[in-house]
């Protein structure tokens, strides 16, 4: 008994200190909370800086077609309400600025850096709002539920984008692009806002986690090593059959002729 009570008494100072800290912390939270917005002020400042920088970029590079106030024009649609998500998709993948009019915008070498894309996105987001990307770094997306992502991809995406993400043709010159060059942000934003002809997959259909799983799956399959050698564009039986018949059977025929000549 003596020893146990002695131990107890030795614990008392720690308990007092812990209680004191909790009390101070609680009081700080309760009464000094408004100050926390002051700590966010630098962030907001950076945000407004990004919006300002984005406005400059927009006026230089985009306003000719999309209008000085995002109202759209003869060359391009209005951008109010498209959100940061659409900006990331169109600009980071190089589709915007548009090179020439056609059935659909083609992927090109990006004209803006990722930082500039973020500034443009901040400007568009600040003027009209719209869907926003969750925090999603291209380099960060290194893990996810591959099985779930694969099932969702095959159900929702593979009919147009091909089982291996190799893309495919649509009607009248349009096409579903190859997914291999797309960054994680581009893939996610495409599902989120449905660019051009692509259907939109709202959070009610595919939750944020499910979209991330699909994104990770796409990144995974488009970068996985090919154990069977060349994938022939991953278009499936048509190019494979073509190669078998032209190259394979052709080689056999030539070999047969050669053997026949030697005989």
């Amino acid at each position: 008994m003596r020893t146990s009570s002695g131990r107890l008494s030795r614990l008392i100072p720690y308990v007092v200190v812990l209680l004191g800290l909790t009390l101070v912390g609680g009081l700080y939270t309760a009464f000094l909370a408004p100050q926390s917005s002051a700590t966010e002020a630098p962030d907001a400042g950076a945000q407004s800086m990004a919006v300002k920088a984005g406005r400059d970029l927009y006026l230089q590079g985009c306003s000719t077609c999309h209008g000085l106030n995002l109202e759209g024009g003869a060359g391009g649609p209005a951008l109010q309400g498209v959100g940061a998500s659409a900006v990331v998709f169109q600009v980071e993948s190089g589709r915007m600025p548009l090179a020439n009019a056609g059935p659909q915008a083609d992927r090109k070498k990006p004209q803006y850096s990722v930082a500039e894309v973020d500034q443009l996105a901040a400007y568009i987001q600040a003027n009209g709002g719209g869907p926003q990307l969750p925090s999603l770094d291209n380099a960060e997306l290194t893990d996810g539920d591959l099985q779930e992502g694969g099932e969702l991809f095959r159900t929702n995406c593979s009919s147009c984008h091909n089982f291996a993400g190799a893309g495919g043709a649509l009607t009248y010159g349009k096409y579903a692009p190859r997914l291999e060059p797309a960054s994680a942000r581009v893939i996610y934003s495409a599902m989120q806002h449905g660019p051009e002809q692509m259907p939109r997959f709202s959070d009610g259909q595919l939750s944020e986690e499910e979209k991330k799983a699909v994104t990770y799956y796409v990144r995974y399959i488009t970068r996985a090593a090919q154990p069977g050698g060349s994938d022939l564009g991953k278009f499936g039986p048509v190019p494979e059959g073509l190669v078998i018949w032209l190259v394979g059977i052709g080689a056999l025929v030539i070999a047969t002729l050669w053997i026949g000549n030697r005989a």
Partner: protein
Amino acid sequence: MSTPMDPQGGRTGGAPTPGAQSTGGQTPTNEPIGGQSSFDAAGSVRDRLRSPGPQSSGGDTRGSAINEGDFEQSDSRADLHEGGRDERQLSASRTPEAAEIQEPRTEDIDPAAAKAAERLVSALFVMSFLGVVGFIVTYIFAPFQYGVEDGNQAYTPLLGIFMMMALGGVGAGAVVWAKRLMPDEEAVQERHPFGSDPDERSATGQALKEGLGQTQLPRRSLLRNTVLLGAGSLALLPVPLLFSFGPFQHKERVLRETSWRQGVRLIRQNGTPVNRDDMQLGGIESVFPDVPRGTKAADSAVLLIRMRPEELRSEQAEGWSVDGYIAYSAICTHLGCPVKLYEQQTHHLLCPCHQSTFAADRGCEVLFGPAARPLPQLAISVDDEGYFVAQGDFDQPVGPSYWERNPTSSYGRDV
């Protein structure tokens, strides 16, 4: 024969005794040393093809020198005997080939070349052996788990390479062996006439006639008629089977009906129902009937599309859609491929198999391609909890045309 040689030199050097011909010709590889023996073997066969009589001096006339006596002498070769019968008639036309046959190979006259050929064949067989060993060792001991970073990516290719060595070594060795060491001879064997000879034919006819007489059918009409009745009616047996193909026995219900019923919810592949608040404009959803094994029902796949209500210009019947939500069978009316390639701005639905294009905003009318008719529309409504339900089954069979499909009738669905 690809090596130009002096034919005379090859022949004169290798003329063996008649007694050695048969053994040498049949089992050249049983000889102890390859070089000289293969030369002997090849030489002996050629000598048998040549006339034993007056020695011909030129290559051109060698073929015509083949005569009857030559083949009767070479009693050890039955196939040459048979060929010999027609050889006589063909000898004139065969002359150039016959000359070619007798041109010796390098291996026939040069023991060193023959030895080299033997070494090559042996090397190929050893390669085959190594391939077998490598295959077995790889199969049993090598780690087989495939992995992009940490696994063994070489496992399958190694198995393939070793198997190629094993099979290819034997095959290539056999080819080289046969072409460079075994006796080089060519023989023509004519087919015998296909028809039976006249005597045999008349004898067979006679036997048939006698047989008919022995059955007594010509005399006993009762027997004849009952045989015709019993055996002849067998021909009727397959007739009822034909009805299986026709409209009488057909369970057209299977083709006509799907799993959709009134009040059945539209569920996703993972089993969750679709709420009217789930989708945004321009969204699509692959849905199935909420019945047991509904997501596996191949005929019940449906594509639910949401567009602006004002964009929906027409549908297949009034009141089948809900506020711009419209549902079509996802099975192409051409050949049954899944039609899920939806373009949210043009509202085109494309079948990937043959490019049939449907206008989803105009009752799925066919814009392009081989499809014969629009995709059937599934009438939908919303239940009390806001989830989509079917108003009933499709009003027409889904998928491709079939024989009994009646294009004009609507199959008993009260709308």
